[in-house]
């Protein structure tokens, strides 16, 4: 059986780090082949070698049985290999048409000829059922549509081998379904697809075979329909994963955080990004706000913590009205915040570990005296956090945080926020982009908070995380809370329906 792609014994080294160690991948024509592995396993690196972004130190690549040497994306393109990256490569103020033709424009004496291109794009759009508006600007269309533009880019230059890098990370459940359909359509038309993912559910749904990588090494290739999720994940991680967290039932105390009728308007319109939201977060429980990205949860947290001004409503912390208080005051009143974007808000990347450790507390008497910093105290504190929270870094408390791995950066933030002994921890997507080890650790710490009688409010997009860790789930849809659920009483599919707005909870019916 001839393989359309063969990557044999590929080794890729950066400096003295082996990103890929003797990895082999064989893809059949007309199949959807999944590439599974944790973050850092080497999946993206392997595809970058195929796509010509990197050159392998050892190994060979064969396309349709012929040995090839892919030195850059142009070579890859000439071999009809195309790639949809996880972070779209689209220019915000180009039109869809311009984006599709960029790099392969039809020209006459250097001048752009748009009509031929337009015709071809419309043809492709019809044939593969990829609906788009050719003259719309990229910044004005949805993420799902942007992804379709990326797919059309590949089809426009007659790519037969299509690589998708974590394509569902940015899509809503509906868009994911549509993408699965599109992939099946593409395969029907004779394309071969490689699909990088760490989401077992999706691999199960659409892939024929799956190759698993772990820490740069090839673990195995399996037939998806005859392999269980547990088996695949064990190959991915190297040990059995407990998908269900052990949770003791806790005594629920009084409310630490009460949010009443919170409303935040969008900047340039009258639309309510956060719409009359009310809820409580109580001692000894983990409340999860679940929702599809873009339904107001980010703004809700910004409003509660003070990063964004609110239009209406009250925020009450331990019985005190802190609606109008500064961010500093809320922090002093025992509200801790593990932010959504650890690089933007959570850390000052060019500071070292100890400077980041006291980011929220540098002004306290234990760290300063009449404005002069007590450097020894800061150092000792950082050392303590490193030890207690197992934070790994190149140079301990003097490491520049930028050089730490994402997992350890997040651990630092979690350590800093929890060590302050807050009454409520607000954690937004606390395990995003982290590998299983770091994820397990952070979940453990959040559970500890709950078991110690603190309140925990988690905002998450990962349905598994939401179902496993929370005591209560609030679903947010279009800025409003539409359901208050108990995870034991629902299924993941049902939760998805609530998140998509197709179902509303009791007491949360839409007002006529």
């Amino acid at each position: 059986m001839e393989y359309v792609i063969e990557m044999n014994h590929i080794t890729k080294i950066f400096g003295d780090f082996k990103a890929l160690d003797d990895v082999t991948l064989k893809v059949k024509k007309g199949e959807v082949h999944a590439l599974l592995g944790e973050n850092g396993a080497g999946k993206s690196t392997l595809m970058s070698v195929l796509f010509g972004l990197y050159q392998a130190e050892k190994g060979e690549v064969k396309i349709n049985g012929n040995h090839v040497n892919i030195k850059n994306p142009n070579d890859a393109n000439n071999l009809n290999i195309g790639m949809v990256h996880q972070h779209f490569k689209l220019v915000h103020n180009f039109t869809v048409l311009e984006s599709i033709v960029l790099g392969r424009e039809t020209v006459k004496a250097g001048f752009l000829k748009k009509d031929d291109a337009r015709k071809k794009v419309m043809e492709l759009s019809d044939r593969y059922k990829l609906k788009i508006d050719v003259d719309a600007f990229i910044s004005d269309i949805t993420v799902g549509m942007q992804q379709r533009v990326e797919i059309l880019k590949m089809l426009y230059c007659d790519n037969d081998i299509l690589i998708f890098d974590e394509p569902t990370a940015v899509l809503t459940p509906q868009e994911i379904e549509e993408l699965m359909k599109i992939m099946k359509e593409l395969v029907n038309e004779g394309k071969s697809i490689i699909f990088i993912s760490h989401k077992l559910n999706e691999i199960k749904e659409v892939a024929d075979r799956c190759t698993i990588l772990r820490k740069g090494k090839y673990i195995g290739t399996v037939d998806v329909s005859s392999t269980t999720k547990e088996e695949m994940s064990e190959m991915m991680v190297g040990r059995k994963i407990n998908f269900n967290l052990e949770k003791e039932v806790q005594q629920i105390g009084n409310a630490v955080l009460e949010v009443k009728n919170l409303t935040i308007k969008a900047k340039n319109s009258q639309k309510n990004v956060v719409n009359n939201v009310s809820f409580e977060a109580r001692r000894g429980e983990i409340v999860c706000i679940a929702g599809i990205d873009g339904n107001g949860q980010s703004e809700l947290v910004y409003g509660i913590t003070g990063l964004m001004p609110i239009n209406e409503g009250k925020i009450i912390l331990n019985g005190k009205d802190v609606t109008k208080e500064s961010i500093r005051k809320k922090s002093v009143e025992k509200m801790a915040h593990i932010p959504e974007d650890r690089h933007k808000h959570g850390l000052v990347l060019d500071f070292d570990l100890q400077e980041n450790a006291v980011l929220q507390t540098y002004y306290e008497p234990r760290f300063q005296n009449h404005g002069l910093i007590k450097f020894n105290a800061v150092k000792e504190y950082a050392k303590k956090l490193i030890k207690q929270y197992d934070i790994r870094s190149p140079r301990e408390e003097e490491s520049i945080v930028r050089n730490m791995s994402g997992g350890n950066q997040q651990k630092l933030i979690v350590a800093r926020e929890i060590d302050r002994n807050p009454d409520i921890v607000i954690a937004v997507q606390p395990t995003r982009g982290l590998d299983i080890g770091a994820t397990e650790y952070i979940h453990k710490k959040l559970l500890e908070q709950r078991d110690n009688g603190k309140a925990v409010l988690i905002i998450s997009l990962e349905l598994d995380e939401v179902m496993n860790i929370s005591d209560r789930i609030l679903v947010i849809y279009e800025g409003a809370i539409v359901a208050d659920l108990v995870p034991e009483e629902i299924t993941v599919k049902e939760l998805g329906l609530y998140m998509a707005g197709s179902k509303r909870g009791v007491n949360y019916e839409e007002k006529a």
Partner: protein
Amino acid sequence: MDTVYFIAQQTMYFAIPLLIVALGGMFSERSGIINIALEGIMVMGAFISISFINIFQDSMSGQQLLILAVLVAGLTGGLFSLLHAFASIKLKADQTISGTALNLFAPAFAIFVARMVQGVQQIQFKDTFHISKVPFLGDIPLIGPILFQNSYITTYIGIGIAIMSWVIINHTRFGLRLRACGEHPQAADSVGINVYKIRYAGVIISGVLAGIGGLVFVVPTSTNFNASVAGYGFLALAVLIFGQWRTKRIFIAAFFFGIMKTFAAAYSGIPFLKDLPISNEVYKMIPYIATLVVLTFSSKNSQAPRAEGIPYDKGSR
């Protein structure tokens, strides 16, 4: 009415160099490289080309000499800007600092060489390029006196450059790719475009135009070059920003600033201005204040190329 013509003609002398240099800045910045060395490149271009005129003005004269000088100025500017291009693109240096270095170097160089060669730092030249009236076109009512009398060939070159720039940026493959490199170089790279090459092109174009702009600035307004272009390079940056990096708006901005400069410089020669209680220093300030105002209100919706100033590193993903 004569005053109007006078103002219009003077405005040309000020607006055209601003236009040319600002368009140069546009090419560089829209490819992703901030170029605040426009001032220094103008000085370099003016210095070499005016020295050229000075050397050859005994054997040549008129438009021939000027056109050759324009070519020399462009070539000089292009070469000098390579320093900035190399530092910014290959070495991924801080572009503001690299630009500042060029700005400091150029006038010192001009003074040094001039004094070593001819003893004094001013370079004189004879103005044999002035066109008092273009045959036929100069007689058209209204447009004639404004555009075709009391002018220089560089005015028409400038307008030609403006039209070409608009066409190139918006209607050619090169323009499309250049814009991609300035907004999202990873996107351009992923479709096989050589971002480095395009950025080099962008910076070199800005160098060529800034060099020409230096010459075009000096010729109508003086009979010697004194190692300075009086901050025009920075004013051109203001034109670029005021014009939100778009050709048509840059055109308008250049003329607006040009008129202000005319008011400031020809203050005493314009009757209605003399009567107003506004000192000429105010007119000098207006372009800068106007830019500040525009910046304040448009920074949220700025059309600045999103990737400008950030060195492109192929390895980073």
